[in-house]
């Protein structure tokens, strides 16, 4: 049960990133899977570099797709995903890398330390976002206006492009960091991140049905989906 709860936390935060990209940046960011994998490969050199590379790719995606409509931006993100995958194949050559991990005892349970850390970071990310949602009504309103219509948001003087850049940079940095931690102890290959992205996309799609309540309900939905499957 405890590992189920930790997994649900991680998937909820990843799904939140997918949902924010879709609603605010207007892109179904298909590069998240490869960014997650990239985090795993980069963790070989040090975990601290994972958010930097993730943020850089998020910025690249923003700059490259800011003048595109949603469908073209989504295809552009797929292009980035394939480019990352191919780069990993070329740079790392070997097909199977087993990442290091450390064992950690949590109330008598044996856990992988890096997975535990990923869960804690995810929990913090969710709490911070919910605090933003509940405590900052004006910022929340701005986000809602962008989500509904970017042109309207610009008419109201909201810098939608800046919001888009922030969302893509933070979500990509987050995916890369969690990839670096959550893939620890696993054998990785350049395509492994797709599994996590598809699962997060699945949770985000269900949450999106609940429209305004989506961000609040994302954790219980993630828990329910993890438990069911």
């Amino acid at each position, binding site marked *: 049960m405890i*590992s*189920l709860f930790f*997994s649900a936390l991680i998937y909820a935060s990843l799904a939140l990133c997918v949902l924010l990209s879709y609603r605010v940046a207007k892109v179904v960011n298909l590069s998240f899977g490869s960014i997650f994998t990239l985090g795993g490969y980069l963790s070989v050199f040090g975990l601290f570099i994972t958010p930097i590379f993730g943020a850089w790719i998020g910025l690249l995606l923003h700059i490259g797709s800011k003048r595109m409509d949603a469908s073209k931006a989504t295809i552009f993100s797929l292009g980035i995903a394939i480019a990352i995958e191919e780069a990993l*194949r070329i740079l790392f*050559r*070997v*097909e*199977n890398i*087993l990442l*290091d*991990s450390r*064992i950690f005892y949590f109330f008598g349970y*044996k*856990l*992988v330390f890096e997975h535990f850390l990923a869960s804690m970071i995810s929990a913090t990310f969710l709490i911070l976002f919910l605090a933003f949602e509940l405590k900052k009504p004006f910022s929340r309103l701005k986000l809602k206006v962008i989500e509904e219509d970017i042109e309207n948001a610009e008419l109201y003087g909201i810098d939608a492009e800046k919001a888009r850049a922030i969302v893509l940079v933070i979500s990509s940095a987050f995916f890369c960091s969690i990839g670096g931690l959550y893939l620890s*102890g*696993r*054998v*990785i*290959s350049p*395509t*492994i991140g*797709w*599994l*996590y992205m*598809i*699962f997060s996309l699945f949770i985000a799609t269900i949450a999106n049905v609940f429209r305004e309540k989506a961000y609040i309900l994302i954790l219980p939905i993630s828990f329910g989906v*993890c438990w069911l*499957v």
Partner: protein
Amino acid sequence: MIGKLKAGLIVGLIVFLLFCATPPQTPTSQPQMPEIKIGVLVPKTGEFSSAGLVMENAAKLAEKHAKEMGYNVKVIIYDCGDKPETTKTAFLSLVREGVTAVVGTYSSPQAMTAADIANESKVVFVASVASADLESKVKTGNKYVFRNAYNTSYWGILAVEFLEKTKAKSYYLIGYEPLKTFNLGMFSLIKNSTKAEFRGESWVKSPTVSPEDYKRVAQEVAKKDVEVIIVGDPGLGSVDFVREYRLAGGNATIYSVGGTLALPDILAKLNISGIAFQAAALEVKAKTNLTKKYFEDYRKYYGTEANNYAGILTYDAILIVTQAAARGGDLISNLERGTFIGAAGVYEFDENHQAKWGSEKLQGTIGIYREGRIQVVS
């Protein structure tokens, strides 16, 4: 006038002598053997892509080694994905390229589809990984399909051999849903052939449906009192399962069908004692002069240890087709009657076009990782 005639005669004589002195023209190169084009179906994308990369590397290595042996071979690699539909498209593309034969595919449904397309297009197909019931295709008149990989029975025979050798009293089966046909066939043979007590079975869902399902299964199985756990997943998930199983307190010996859990560097880094695995060949137990060359060159060119099943058997399938095609005449007759050297042993095919695994010159190997090194069980 006479002087001019003399000069003409002298020049003519010189030209004649020069002509006679010119060595006869020799061909600059030996006449080339006709090119043997071999199509390889590799799952570069989809659920089996990690095995696909190994198969692709092994196919390129086979082409290189075949050329070194003097064969004029060209290997054409196509992505067959993880579904029968994508396999069909890739197979037909290879037929359009004019290949002599097609080798490869990964899962059983893919191999069954490839066998049907081989029959329709009259192009030989050699299944190098899948254990599907291809013999039934041959029995019903499809003479274009061969298999150099194990059939389901042999997978089961090896697992039973391990249970008998280790005198295990009980066992538990862990199936992998994307390879259900293969796992069910193998499990059925084990249940019917061993004296060890069957303590149950669990199935790990496809990671695309549930990436964490191995945790549920590992925690469930860790509570069972059992001596040997037989794992049917040759992919990356098997490592996740083993790690989670040990974390949950399970201490049974794990017998894996190979693949990722047969890689020496993975086993060394994982450093969990009591992981047994089957391999078509092991570097420490050379079967032909190609065994060592395959493992050494794979490491040299790709910077990693050779995968022991999907890779080596794809390598062997290409060499088998090359040797058969180079003999000239009908490829099918050559395959049916010939003897072919590969890295895993010496191949011959039975009346159902199945490689004679279990014969004296072609046997699988069982290894176990214990006390920091791989030991050969049989």
